[in-house]
């Protein structure tokens, strides 16, 4: 079993990285829209 502080750190880091991934995906789509419709 992982201790609670480590589990919390893991969840926070995973959340930050997931948000980063979503933002990069969204930015890519926005670039696509701007380039093709701008």
């Amino acid at each position, binding site marked *: 079993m992982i201790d609670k502080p480590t589990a919390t750190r893991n969840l926070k880091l995973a959340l930050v990285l997931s948000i980063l991934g979503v933002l990069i995906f969204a930015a890519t789509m926005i*670039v696509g829209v701007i380039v093709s419709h701008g």
Partner: protein
Amino acid sequence: MVTETYPTQAPAAPATRSDGLWSWISTVDHKRIGIMYLILTFFFFLVGGVFALVLRLQLSGPSKTLVSPEIYDQIMTMHGTTMIFLFVVPVMAGFGNYLVPLQIGARDMAFPRLNALSFWLLLFGGMVMYSSFLWTGAADAGWTSYPPLSVQSPGHGQDLWIVGLHILGISSFVGALNFICTIHNMRAPGMRMSRLPLFTWTIDMYAFMIVAAGPVLAGALTMLLLDRNYGTHFYNPDHNGNVLLYQHLFWFYSHPVVYVMALPGFGMISEILPVFSRKPLFGYRALVYSTVAIAFLGFLVWGHHMFAVGFSEPVQIWFMLASMSIAVPTGVKIFNWIGTMWMGQLRFEPPMLFAVGFIGLFLIGGLSGIMLAIYPIDQQVTDTYFVVAHFHYVLGTVPVFAVMAGLHYWFPKITGKMLDRRLALQSFWVIFIGFNMTFFPMHGMGLSGMPRRIATYTNSSWTIYNQIATLGSIVLAVGVLMVMWNVLSSLRSSRTAPADPWGGYSLEWYTSSPPPAHNFDDLPPIRSERPVYDLRRERALAREGAAS
């Protein structure tokens, strides 16, 4: 074989651990998931290899008709896709899954269930892609799938390719999150980042690159799917779209992926060379910094894949110089590897042979890479077999030499059995000869003008190159089958592996072979990136002290 013993010699399979099929399907143990990754990815490697043999046989002479041009395009597309997305990238996740928790002294990955999800998504993504062969035919626009070809490709093979890649992307993204959390939050006391084994360092960079680059490919593929099926025109210039947008996005992802594939291979080499040179790694910090530098620079050079599209002069010069700059940290690595071997007590066991073979052949690919980074040269040989030769010497050497080095090195740890040494040495030489016979003539093909991705040709001056390459591909296939036979027969052999057969340096060699479910009973003091080496040295000094 070294037979040093350490306190942790726990039984390989505790009584509570089931070995039934369901226990494997439902497992969340990082070692079992790692093994399943390795089995699945090596299966994909064999499938991709069969595709390659079909391509080589088709090109063994002018005007061959073994397969139709349509089938050739599908096999060529699925060969590249299989080797990159279903073998080289995920095989590193397989080794990473098995080794990272062991190397950092952890019990398991940070998110064991997510880890299992990553594996099953890999299987599902591969099945979705291959299912296209059963329907209207597989994708046929090349592994790069540039529009307009990929937008106009008939049937649903291209759609299944896109959906399959999305699934694989989620698999590798989730796996990358897990690696980063594990490496940054789950290290044993004393295992600072500055003491991480090189393989774990490279898996950390592998994971960060996937997190940063993967969503860009996901965006590019989403737009491609929308253009194909939902009437959008992201890539259609007739409707204000931009056909080059896909190439920019694709290579912004795919050039870093070159290093996603190569860096863990570098990590394997950095683990193996010092052990078989009987010396500490030369320049640990330089190797870490060069790993980080390569990962960073990898995001700045995507345009060198697009020199033929007609960038302005300053843009061409930027991408040329940025691409050439990667030779600096790569050169640092090769310098440090040679420095590690220099004056060492070299033991040419199979892992060492594959590692040294990797350095020599990767250097050839690196040198042709510098040539291709010079845009006037690239414009002369773009889309010829010279490029195919280059990327097989770079990316082909990673699976065929670095991964094989890793397989021969860690096989005793993973299975508790030793490979047949004689057969392993023989298979190295067969693979080495076959690899060079297959790919070296492709430089000549390219320089004499043979385009890549053609299903047949009539120019008889290319025939001799193609005949040598085809013969070489058969030799290479025999070599790979020899390795596979060695693996399968050794599993049933009586050659039991001790905990530390090679005299290893990192923590995985401190536990039994194979390790128990909980990995370690205890850990040695961790004062450097080579705690087991330090422990052995302390013992040797203590023995000397007692003797005197």
